């Protein structure tokens, strides 16, 4: 295994981690503050990607497209909150699962009807296309670096927002003890709406950013949603910091496991068996990681609730 | 201490910097009715949680008949005979009154890994359950849904459930909480009947009830026991009057 490949894959893992964080950050707060299980969060990611694709095609400029896609994603999230989700906050988890499952079915299909079943592609903005030499022999796509960079920047901003501002304080307090927050005389309905809309926009941003390197297709959010769940469970529900650390962990474990798992196994078994086992085991690694974390810490690494 | 039924040795519990119970040591002999009183926030309920195993013990030991049960989780302590009631009524509202109690019998008799046969028809479970209901005066409500009982009746049911577990030691967390004068008279009479038969550790706010029922009383203030004695001794104890009853010492 070459060192260059290791660097490249580590960066890829980091990029996946950043992506997962952008989706998980909103979701973990929705879970934590509202005790609301939202399966439809992956759909927000998909909608973000589609909106970016549409607006980019219309304006001919990715950044203009992104600038239009973000508020649209926010509006879309708020509309869903207003029409459906807010009626579910005081229901049990099962009702929430069922209704948000219904929303997934609806929107995946709606996307198919509107934009067709075939994947859309979004060109990488010219200024950031191509690759850059990071060190001798290490060439890396610029756009992926942009994703990593913007994701990290948002992580820092979000960290400051949550730990330093009044609304962040309320959100943290809400994740620890929702009753307390309403006892403080805060309009909890409004707080929920803000958290929800913000989370939807972050997920939409994630979708928009990866649109140029992934194919934009119906159901693209579904599998990522499950990985996001794993991230949230590992990080601890309601913890943004936990979500970040867990997202990077999951991103790295998943990416590195897939590319180096078989190679590492070759050290202890014969090559054919190693590649067989490696390929079977690699996609399970993140889940094994989750099981291991939960075995020792059933509430995740950084549980918000005491 | 051959006849010590329940011993607490240096029990402590703290949440972060906040110490809730602080070095509580207490020995309750078999058959004693022991009451713990103290101002709000003195750590009384935390102490019961600690003894019963509902929350993990900080440090210190709980001994039942000389045997260390500190490491046992709540359900296993119950099976050893260390049974508790809850301050906020905790019953199965969708079950009938009889079934609530029969479940406690079921936990005690035989295995519950039995997958066939109607449990509700097992006389082996229902007979002791009816006896416990009789004891607390709820026999005629046996078939009612527990959720439909009045508050006082729920408190009675709570006691019946505890009794059906055949406790060696009964931990009662404010059994009179929220009851009216008539309801509490019924409950006090019931506790009076239990006195001497079962070792009881009672937490209660109603001073009259405590002084009428208890053999000995301990006073808990800021998580520490500041005095233990007969009701008369405790009433006369100067420290207690200052710390708890709030009286000026003249």
């Amino acid at each position, binding site marked *: 295994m070459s060192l260059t490949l290791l660097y490249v894959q580590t960066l890829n893992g980091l990029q996946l981690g950043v992506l997962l964080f952008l989706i998980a950050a909103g979701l973990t707060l929705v879970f934590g503050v509202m005790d609301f299980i939202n399966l439809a969060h992956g759909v927000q990611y998909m909608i973000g990607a589609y909106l970016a694709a549409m607006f980019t095609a219309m304006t001919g400029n990715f950044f203009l497209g992104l600038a239009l896609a973000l508020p649209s994603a926010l509006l879309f999230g708020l509309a869903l909150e207003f029409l459906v989700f807010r009626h579910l906050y005081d229901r049990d988890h099962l009702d929430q699962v069922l209704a948000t499952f219904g929303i997934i079915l609806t929107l995946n299909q709606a996307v*198919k009807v509107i934009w067709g079943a075939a994947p859309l592609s979004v060109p990488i903005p010219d200024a950031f296309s191509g690759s850059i030499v990071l060190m001798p022999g290490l060439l890396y796509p610029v756009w992926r670096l942009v994703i990593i960079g913007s994701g990290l920047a948002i992580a820092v901003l979000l960290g400051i927002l949550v730990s330093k501002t009044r609304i962040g304080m309320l959100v943290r307090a809400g994740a620890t003890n929702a009753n307390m927050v309403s006892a403080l005389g805060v309009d909890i309905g409004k707080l929920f709406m803000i958290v929800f809309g913000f989370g939807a926009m972050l997920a939409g941003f994630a979708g928009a950013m990866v649109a140029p390197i992934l194919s934009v297709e119906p159901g693209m959010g579904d599998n990522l949603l499950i990985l996001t*769940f794993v991230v949230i469970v590992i990080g601890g529900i309601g913890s943004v910091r936990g979500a970040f650390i867990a997202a990077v962990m999951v991103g790295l474990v998943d990416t590195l496991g897939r590319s180096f798992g078989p190679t590492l196994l070759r050290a202890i078994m014969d090559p054919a068996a190693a590649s067989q086992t490696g390929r079977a085991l690699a996609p399970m690694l993140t889940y094994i990681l989750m099981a291991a974390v939960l075995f020792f810490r059933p509430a995740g690494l950084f549980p918000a609730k005491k | 201490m051959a006849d010590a039924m329940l011993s607490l040795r240096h029990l402590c519990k703290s949440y972060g910097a906040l110490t809730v119970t602080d070095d509580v040591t207490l020995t309750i002999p078999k058959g004693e009715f022991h009451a713990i009183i103290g101002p709000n926030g003195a750590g009384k309920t935390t102490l019961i949680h600690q003894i019963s195993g509902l929350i993990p013990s900080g440090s210190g030991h709980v001994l039942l008949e000389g045997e260390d049960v500190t490491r046992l989780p709540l*359900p296993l302590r119950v099976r050893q005979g260390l049974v508790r009631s809850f301050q906020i009524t905790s019953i199965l509202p969708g079950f009938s009154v009889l079934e609530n109690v029969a479940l406690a019998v079921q936990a005690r008799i035989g295995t519950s890994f039995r*997958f066939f046969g109607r449990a509700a028809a097992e006389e082996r479970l229902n007979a002791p359950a009816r006896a416990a209901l009789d004891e607390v005066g709820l026999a005629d409500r046996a078939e009612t849904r527990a959720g439909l009982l009045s508050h006082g009746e729920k408190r009675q049911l709570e006691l019946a459930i505890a009794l059906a577990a055949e406790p060696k030691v009964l931990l009662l967390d404010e059994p009179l909480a929220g009851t009216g004068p008539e309801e509490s008279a019924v409950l006090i009479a019931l506790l009076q009947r239990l006195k001497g038969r079962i070792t009881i550790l009672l937490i209660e706010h109603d001073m009259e009830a405590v002084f009428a029922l208890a053999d000995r009383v301990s006073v808990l203030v800021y998580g520490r026991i500041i005095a233990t004695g007969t009701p008369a001794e405790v009433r006369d104890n100067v420290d207690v009057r200052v710390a708890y009853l709030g009286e000026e010492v003249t």
Partner: protein
Amino acid sequence: MMIRREALPLLLFAFFALMPIAASFGPESYLLALVTRVMVFAIAAVSLDLILGYGALVSFGHAAFMGVGAYAVGILSSHGIKDTAIQLPVALAASAFFAVITGALSLRTKGVYFIMITLAFGQMAFFLAVSLAAYGGDDGMTLSGRSQLFGFDFIKRDRAFYYVTLVALIAAYALCRSLVVSRFGRVIRGARENPQRMAAIGFPLFHYQLAIYVIAGTLCGLAGFLMANQAEFVSPAYMTWQRSGELIVMVLLGGLGSLHGAILGAAAFLLLEEGLSGITEHWKLIFGPFLVLVVLFARGGLIGAVERLRGKGGA
């Protein structure tokens, strides 16, 4: 009222038993296949109702057990072992084993965590199946025929298979019915109402919940065994998380915690799917909003609706 309530499952089974006779006057093989599929999913839904409805454990990975059962059939049969006497015990044991491992880990957690973890374990099983290149990987694999019993092709004919499935459904239903009123079932139901009280009565709930989780998983493995045989095909698609979601939908559609509600729900779901997809390929655009509306406005599912109607009628 009591008699009526107990009459519903009997009516359902009578319908299933007599359906093939009626079907012989119509498109027989289509109807047999459709209703067999309904019954297979009914077994899975009944098993899910055990943990979902009676245990209040929202498991979102139940389809994995169906997949494990189905893959046991597929893998054994690809190695030439086609006899039910071996396949069925292996399918059940494999599902039970998967349930013990995932249940023991999942049940350490509660609420939203439990939902997400069961979901994740379901996905793990899915990805494992996808990576089994030797057994078809992504595409799944076609069986060379249905299972035999002591060398005899006992379910080769669709009608025979139909009745075998019906017997399996009735047996599964009867087992669950007995379970929920037994001592064991009473503990499970008690834990649904008030777990803290159950612990304070002296029940270490983890053991009981793990047991019901394993029983439900094993029963669902039975559904998987039948599923593989009906389609004569196994694929990772059997255990997607969407499939797990559909199983939950079936149970809720029928009404939680009644067992026969789950059968009703499975039938309603599959027939609705069949009917709607006959009308438009975008049937999910109708079904999705329908689900949301059911949650918002019709709590208690079909059984609940029936009981509400009855209540209004003053029965």
